[in-house]
């Protein structure tokens, strides 16, 4: 079985408590759904901070693959692409 090459995931600052402070991690998957599943395997609980029980992206989170905004978890993710997790910030 061929292993899916890893893409890069950039983690929003408020979610880095899950990644040990890492801003950038690698995750496997050909679709965003697979990438997030792999991310959750590595950092348990992080997916739920972004995706709700109905598999919808939470309203204070935005996901981009490179510069494309993603609205569906079936979005394809290439090996050289970066998934950006962006989160509403409240500080002023």
């Amino acid at each position, binding site marked *: 079985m061929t292993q899916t090459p890893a893409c890069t995931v950039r983690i929003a600052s408020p979610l880095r408590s899950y990644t040990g402070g890492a801003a950038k991690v690698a995750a496997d998957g050909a679709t965003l759904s697979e990438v997030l599943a792999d991310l959750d395997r590595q950092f348990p609980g992080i997916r739920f901070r972004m995706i709700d029980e109905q598999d919808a992206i939470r309203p204070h989170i935005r996901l*981009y693959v490179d510069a494309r905004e993603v609205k569906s978890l079936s979005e394809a993710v290439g090996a050289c692409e970066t998934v950006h997790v962006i989160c509403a910030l409240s500080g002023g």
Partner: protein
Amino acid sequence: MILSAAEQSRYQRHLALAEVGPAGQQRLKSARVLIVGAGGLGSPAAMYLAAAGVGTLGIVDCDRVELSNLHRQLLFATADVGRPKTDAACERLAHLNPEIALEAHALELRTANAREVLENYDVILDGTDRLATRYLVNDACVILAKPLVSAAIHRFEGQVMTYVPGRSACYRCLYPEAREGIVANCAEAGVLGVLPGVLGAIQATEAVKLVTGLGEPLAGRLLTYDALEMTFREFPVERRRDCAVCGERPSITVLADQDERCATSLERVRRLAAAELRETLCRGTPAAVVLVDVREPQEFAIGRLEGSINIPIGDLPQRLADIPRGATPIFLCRSGRRSLAACELAMGGGIEAPAHLEGGLLAWAREIDSTFALD
């Protein structure tokens, strides 16, 4: 509006820019810009806009200057600690540029006053530290058709976007909903002091551009800044047809504070003062009460109340089953914001009468146990 000799001298470097020139400087002099929040973002924005010669600058803030503000809020000096921020800010800005008019609004922006405050300004800058106010300011700007430059910060990162009425995505298009407590604020998470300087300066730049008509506003584009990597990134943000305020069939047509929207449900929350919590714990009914600390694990590791369990706020919806049925959860966090949000989540999950520690563990450390460790 004619520039005086003193103004021509003061703004000479602007006048030397052909793109600004006397016409642009006169537009700045005629402009009225409102800054909501005299904090880390509002400080540099206010100073640059005052220096730039914005004719009327309004400042909204109901807080007083605290010592912990000074590592990033350059409007204030050590001697200002304890003073109302609007007083200290206007004094500082008047020293910087006596040619401009300053309007202090020492109030908390609420549903009842937002229209009255905002409607007299041409451009609004949002630098508050309260999500409910961000939505209130956004909704007011959409309803009043005012351009808005919104920025926010967290630890080493910041975001900024400009809303141009009728043309670009608003803050609700960017984030349709966000609750207090789900996202940590500066007091809870910390912030690099110089970070808001960068974002606040960008907000001021956008305001100058909007007033003078120069360049391309940051409309429909979210600009993110990572101070540790020293990178800026730009992400497209489209208008949402289903946006609750600027969409095709808006459900928000009058102003309402997000906190007021959920006030009815929150009336069922029992709000415990630190002394009340101590009494509750002293009564020793462990089966009836469970202390649930909703801070992040690293905060919990620094200091915790004996017997408390840790369920970070973001995990709470999927871990409500960890709270024993029949027990009353008392939610705890650093300041009381996240614990109040936890109560709302718990009620949504079927827990009827949750409680929370008002003022958070900060109040506990201040009023009950001065040795309690907080980050």
